[in-house]
């Protein structure tokens, strides 16, 4: 890298990171003073509407454990948007994310359809607790749809371990065969790892191949596929409804159960109904009426955010929104994205929200 270690510390009072990045990006698109960036080296179609992107991260991209998520930021129609994906390491300084196009999903649509070799993505810090299970007990990995991606990361990492592996059962649900990802790679893994069994379950396929199963998760099916259920460490990942079902079935029946669902946009609440505003910096949680101007509502609860014109022009009351759905009193639109700047005086909370205050 251009500037590293002690030299960087020495230079830092003199350098404006943004000016540095502007000129550095002329040399290499991922060269940056401090931003974690990754260049897309390759893209391949993994399944229907699903693409795997092979990335070369710069040195500011932090580590992650298999099974964790990272936030990926891209610019779609001029707006920087962030979503979480489960990355895998593919050897040194190569990582992969697999993205399925979600209906109406701006980021997944951009990543699957527009993103190409040479593009640069920003990669945030890793989070998530579904990291490698203990090697002392059998693993039960239950995935549906894109829920396969953290499982894949765990399996790829497991395949590189020097130690003997416990029995691993992967139950992988998809609608049809065309929606299944990592077909050949999973077969190869199963051939290399004698302890791994892969069960594919299809809910909308009319004709099944010999090794495929059908049906939605229920107790009979689970007991049939996994004989010694009680001994398992179970990991579940998939859409919220699927995860809730499987979790109910497994909890109590297995030794341990960890689950993660893709969060779906929350539904707007009724006008005037109380919603919770969490102020991230002060740690306060306040209840305000949904649909009320946030600045006035916060002031009524004793907060004193910076403000100016109270009519949406002067930008004094802008603050970041970290989570939740807000409404715009001037334009009338809803926003479900985390945003860096939102005017409190002309915005309303439509769900529980978190503000950078």
């Amino acid at each position, binding site marked *: 890298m251009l500037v590293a270690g002690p030299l960087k510390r020495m230079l830092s009072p003199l350098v404006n990171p*943004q*000016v540095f990045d*502007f*000129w550095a990006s002329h040399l290499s698109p991922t060269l940056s003073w401090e931003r974690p960036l990754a260049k897309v080296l390759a893209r391949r179609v993994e399944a229907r509407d699903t693409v795997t992107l092979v990335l070369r991260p710069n040195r500011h991209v932090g580590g992650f454990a298999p099974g964790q998520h990272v936030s990926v930021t891209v*610019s779609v*129609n*001029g*707006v*920087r*948007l962030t979503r979480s994906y489960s990355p895998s390491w593919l050897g040194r300084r190569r990582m992969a994310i697999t993205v399925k196009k979600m209906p109406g999903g701006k980021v997944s649509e951009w990543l699957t359809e527009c993103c190409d070799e040479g593009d640069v993505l920003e990669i945030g810090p890793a989070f998530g607790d579904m990291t490698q299970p203990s090697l002392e007990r059998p693993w039960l990995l239950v995935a549906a749809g894109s829920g396969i991606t953290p499982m894949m990361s765990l399996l790829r990492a497991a395949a590189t371990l020097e130690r003997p592996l416990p029995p691993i059962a992967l139950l992988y649900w998809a609608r049809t065969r065309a929606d299944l990802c990592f077909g050949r790679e999973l077969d190869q893994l199963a051939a290399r790892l004698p302890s791994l069994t892969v069960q594919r379950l299809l809910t909308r396929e009319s004709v099944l191949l010999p090794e495929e199963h059908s049906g939605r998760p229920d107790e009979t099916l689970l007991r049939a596929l996994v004989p010694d259920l009680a001994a398992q460490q179970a990991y579940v990942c998939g859409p919220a409804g699927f995860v809730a079902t499987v979790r109910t079935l497994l909890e109590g029946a297995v030794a341990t159960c960890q689950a993660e669902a893709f969060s779906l946009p929350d539904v707007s609440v009724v006008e005037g109904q109380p919603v919770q505003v969490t102020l991230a910096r002060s740690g306060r949680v306040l209840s305000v009426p949904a649909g009320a101007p946030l600045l006035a509502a916060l002031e009524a609860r004793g907060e004193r955010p910076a403000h*100016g*014109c109270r*009519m*949406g*022009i*002067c*930008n*004094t009351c*802008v603050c970041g929104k970290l989570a939740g759905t807000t409404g715009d009193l*001037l*334009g009338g639109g809803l926003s479900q*994205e985390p*945003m*860096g*700047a939102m*005017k409190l005086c002309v915005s309303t909370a439509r769900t529980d929200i978190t503000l950078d205050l």
Partner: protein
Amino acid sequence: MTTAVSRRPLSADEVTRFGAEIDALRERTLADIGDADARYIRRIHAAVRYTEILGRGLLFFGLFPPAWLLGTLLLGVSKILENMELGHNVMHGQYDWMNDPRFDGKTYEWDIVGTSDNWRKTHNFKHHTYTNIKGMDDDVGYGLLRLFPEQRWRPFFLGQPLYAVIFALLFQWGVAIQDLRLGAYFAGRMSAAELRAQFRPVGRKMRRQLLKDYVFFPLIAGPFFLPVLLGNLVANGLRNLWTFMIIFCGHFTANAEVFPKSVLENETRGQWYLRQLRGSSNLRGGRLFHILSGNLSHQIEHHLFPDIPARRYAAMSQEVRAICERYGIYYNTGSLWSQFGQVVWRILRYALPSKPVSMEGRRLVVNE
């Protein structure tokens, strides 16, 4: 200075409909904002960087007069672009929707001696909320000049043609001290301790800017210290004159109006729009002129829509003008020279005493 311009107050109903039409234009434009606007501001940002490095580079060969001249001009253009189309517009939050920290209105720090934080207060809040309201918008004469007959004359104003020239040459310094309320200090309404506390961030920024342009860059030029220092001085001076001209032409032309505080009582959105319109004036010119003025040549549209990307103003101005025609509202526009002539006339005329003009009862709206 009264002209044949119609100052007919609109009926309450007309103002409501007028406001709704302006709101609809705002909505239509916002719905269309996206990639093209993001690309534009990134290009402006790149243009600032390229002109700066070229200008500073050429100044290192400043002993050769054409290099000095071109270097100085390029650095001046870079500073003007950074000040107007980039800094000013970004700080209005025009590009906040991009979620890009480089173009974040709340944190952007520009390349002038004034701090961005002070500017966000004096300009974004005070000037844009209380546009041309005497006693509330500090930009009306900047506490230094008498530009409207509604301002009370004092013998001090006899010297204002001279103050105006000094102010124009040192404009960024005027902006830097605008929020310090030196007037209050000299009148004994603010303690020295309070002033010192307020001055601390301002002084830090001033020192930083002075070191950059008059110590750091001249020093790294070694034997060419002097031409680099002079080039930087002239580039800063050019920007001062240019921004002074554009800003004064935006609000102090012959037909720009000033308002009493009473207009704020129960002011509706439509009334607010109407006040912005009647207090602002546009400049005609080509595309490059609009970019170099930060699109403040579309001062009317900037005041109606301060948070919409300024590159949209040119198209919006067509529609605003058509709306104004429908309601018989005067749309103040002219060439730079004619508008600047009117500004100069105001500076000279109101240096001298004039019949006091009362704003009592001045209204934008009549209730039927």
